[in-house]
């Protein structure tokens, strides 16, 4: 895949639902290289995958490649099945995004493997309104850095890809670029 060129204009970061308005901060729309830097700097990054992986095989490919680059996967919403078929061994498969979000808000929780808190959580393949609520919860009640890699700009994340609903190709290219930088 070709890189997203510098001069290529990123679409504006429009909320997936125009009514999902807050008074506090909105996510910073970021390019792949910023996400790559965040991942490199993180001590315990994790990728959470959602139900859209059951509908969009491309997302399975990208998640599997991130896994190959050493990012553990928390597979939710049934996304584990296609991932396992691709040779991925997810950290967990049967906890929901709701469980995970609740657990992350507990100061004492040391992660699914007991090795410590996750400091960077990347999200891929979620129903936008579901992810929005979970990100909102974390924004207010947890200290974790959240990054949405979905095609929908997620206002409650700390960082999010911009809105790419109009341009799926660009979404895929951005994911590709990110993975290549890891």
């Amino acid at each position, binding site marked *: 895949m070709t890189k997203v060129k510098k001069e290529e204009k990123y679409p504006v970061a429009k909320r997936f639902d125009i009514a999902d308005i*807050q008074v506090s901060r909105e996510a910073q729309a970021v390019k792949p290289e910023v996400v790559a830097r965040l991942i490199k700097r993180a001590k315990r990054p994790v990728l959470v995958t959602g139900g859209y992986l059951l509908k969009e095989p491309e997302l399975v490919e990208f998640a599997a490649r991130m896994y190959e680059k050493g990012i553990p996967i928390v597979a939710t919403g*049934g996304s584990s099945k296609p991932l396992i078929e691709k040779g991925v061994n997810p950290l967990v498969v049967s906890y929901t995004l709701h469980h995970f979000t609740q657990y992350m808000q507990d100061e004492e929780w040391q992660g699914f493997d007991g090795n410590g808190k996750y400091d960077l959580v990347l999200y891929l393949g979620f129903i936008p309104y579901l992810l929005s*609520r979970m990100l909102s919860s974390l924004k207010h009640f947890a200290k974790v850095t959240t990054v949405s890699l979905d095609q929908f700009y997620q206002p409650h994340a700390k960082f999010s890809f911009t809105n790419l609903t109009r341009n799926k190709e660009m979404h895929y290219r951005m994911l590709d670029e990110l993975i290549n930088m890891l």
Partner: protein
Amino acid sequence: MAINLRGSFVLDEVKNVRINIGKIVEEEMEWEEETGPTPKPGIMELRKWDRRLLERYEPFYAPMQDFCNLCTMGPCDLSGNKRGACGINLKNTKARLVTIACSIGSAAHTAHARHMLDHIIEEYGEDMPIDLGPDVNVEAPIIRTVIGIKPRTLGDLREALTWAEKEIVKVLHSTHIGNEEDILDYESKAMHVSMADHVGMEVADIAQIVAFNLPKADPDTALVDTGFGIVDKSKPVIVVVGHNVMYARPVADYLEEKGLSDKFELAGLCCTSHDMTRYNAKAKIFGPISYQLRVIRAGIPDVIISDEQCIRADLLSACEEMAIPLIATSDAAVRGLPNRNDDPVEDIIEDLISGKTPGVFLSEPEKIAEVVPKVAEAVFKKKQETEMFLTEDQLIEEVNKCTQCMNCVFTCPHSLRIDQGMESAQKGDFSKLASLEEVCIACRKCEQVCPKDIKILSVIMKTGLKGLLSKTGKTRVGRGPIQDTEIRKVGQPIVFGQIPGVIAAVGCTNYPDEMVDLRIILDEFLRRRYIVVTSGCHAMDIGMLKDEEGKTLYEKYPGNFDAGGLVNVGSCVANSHIAGATIKIANIFAMRPLRGNYAEIADYILNRVGAVGFSWGPYSHKAASIATGFNRLGVPVVVGPHGTKYRRAYIGKPWKKENWWVYDIKTGKKVYIEPAPDSLLLAVETKEEAIVQLAKLTIRPNDTGMGRQIKLTHYLELSKKYLGRYPDDWPIYVRSEADLPLRQKEELLKILEEEHGWKIDWNKKKILEGPIRPLDPGFNPTLVEEVYDKYSRKK
């Protein structure tokens, strides 16, 4: 035996003393059960039970807004859990909001019950006996447990209703500015008001069953036509919409009396249609709220009768657009219409037919009965035959206006790719647009933001018309309560775990994806011989989805409350029979006393009855209070992803050993247990995830070895089938080798040894070390000190 000793007695010498003895004497004579600790509980009486639950199932909040603007000191930015001018923080505003939502839901059912009961008593008298058929002796399990009375007559139900009304007001009071500051107190109140909701529902449904002779626990009720394409359009079509059958019933009676039943079509939207079919199986079910605009825009009705709850707030304008006269009947939803109760019937009919008024408010049953058929007939005669939604030319014209600006996509609750559908259609391929019909909830939000004023909803429906019409099938009429005899039969297998669980599919239609997923989910459990119970919108939606053989689930599975049975209890208020069934298991099978004994019963259910609520598309406040009421009763609930917008969940943390304990009455010890169930309110994203979570949440601490083995077999199989491998947490549910699925026993023992460090005696194939606790056949768990004391003493 009843003793006729009712009335008030004024003693001659003591003029100011009035003694009402009849009722008390009768109750005592008839009901030997001792009154438990909490008859007619106030806010404080069950707070301790709630805290037990809430300490384990910690509330989780997902704010929709980070501000509060409920008083004039605000608006306040509460982001990051800051406090507003009044001192409340973000979490607490969400807890308060949930309490308000549950209060609204509870008030809806309870006001419905009040209206119904008062009318019914007026018509039939307060002494009309509560008779729910020969197989139902425990007639009002919720009222018995919460209120502590055993209602014999319709008049007795008033006592329960008055209690519920009082508690709703008290809880609503607590949401005023400057009251609670602890989230657990708000959550306790949300649970309290939701328990009142269950009482209100039980009153409403018992009253209507008794007075209107609705089916009484009959597992084999009639199958009625369901779906968009059910009506014969060569007859005048009367459509009822809402949740209170009081107003539609006289119409059915009138048609019967006049011998006109076969000359008209009578069909309903939402729960009124359930209750219509329970009253008269000639009535038909169109579908849920998402079918309101579908049916109206298609121009099917010749007249619409609306009552209350979950009716679109643009009903009148939608009817006006299609020149369909509207008769609003409930004072909860007058819709700005003139009150015509005092006018002569002829005038009302004339004004509606001529279009002088688009609708009227009319709540007099006799007048409704007379006006409706006459208006329907006249409108029908005047009506020109038109194509549904749009003509072909209009469709193309609309589609061609689209510029793919995507305003609609960013407004649609499902972010449906209307732009792509339009683009394909412009090139001649309408299939993408047609497929949107499956997911569209017909909310019409898209149309309002379209700069080209495209009638998007009509475009979607027109292109998807074939699919829409094919969603036509049969619903088994709501049967009301579960028989005591059925409970007697399944009580033990449920408590011991041989029947792996009861899945209660209840609620609205804000589904995340195609409606058919609901059928797939329930079919999976029916095939595995769980008991599936259903009501409301879920119950009618599965009635319109057929399999390859053209059968709905109702035609595939029997209607009895037994393994592999699919039980439709009826409308929203009939949900009370689902809660009632869990209570009856504690009472009829385990002989636990109900009278004013809520915490003991809820504790019994939480620890022993593998029932799980499931609401795949919840949106209403009533769904919030129904679910929260189930939670207080010890029944976990799984909701679809839109359910996260209720903002609150109850999710336990399995690694916190200190949260997972019970008292074991047998050994007299506090025992640490496996986290079963691990959540009380949980959202899932996909049908795959729903299936696996539902299977897991049926696990209970009290399962026998055989029961746990069966439940784990399903949990493991389903996880493998839908998630690709065994669930991550299955080992925590293993107490001994007897819990392991037989076929995979060796494989699983190996995993326990190699991956979890458990010690196994391979000669005997026994687990020596590893589980949280051993399997103990006499295990007798409780979370309630008083229950522990009571039964330890008895020993």
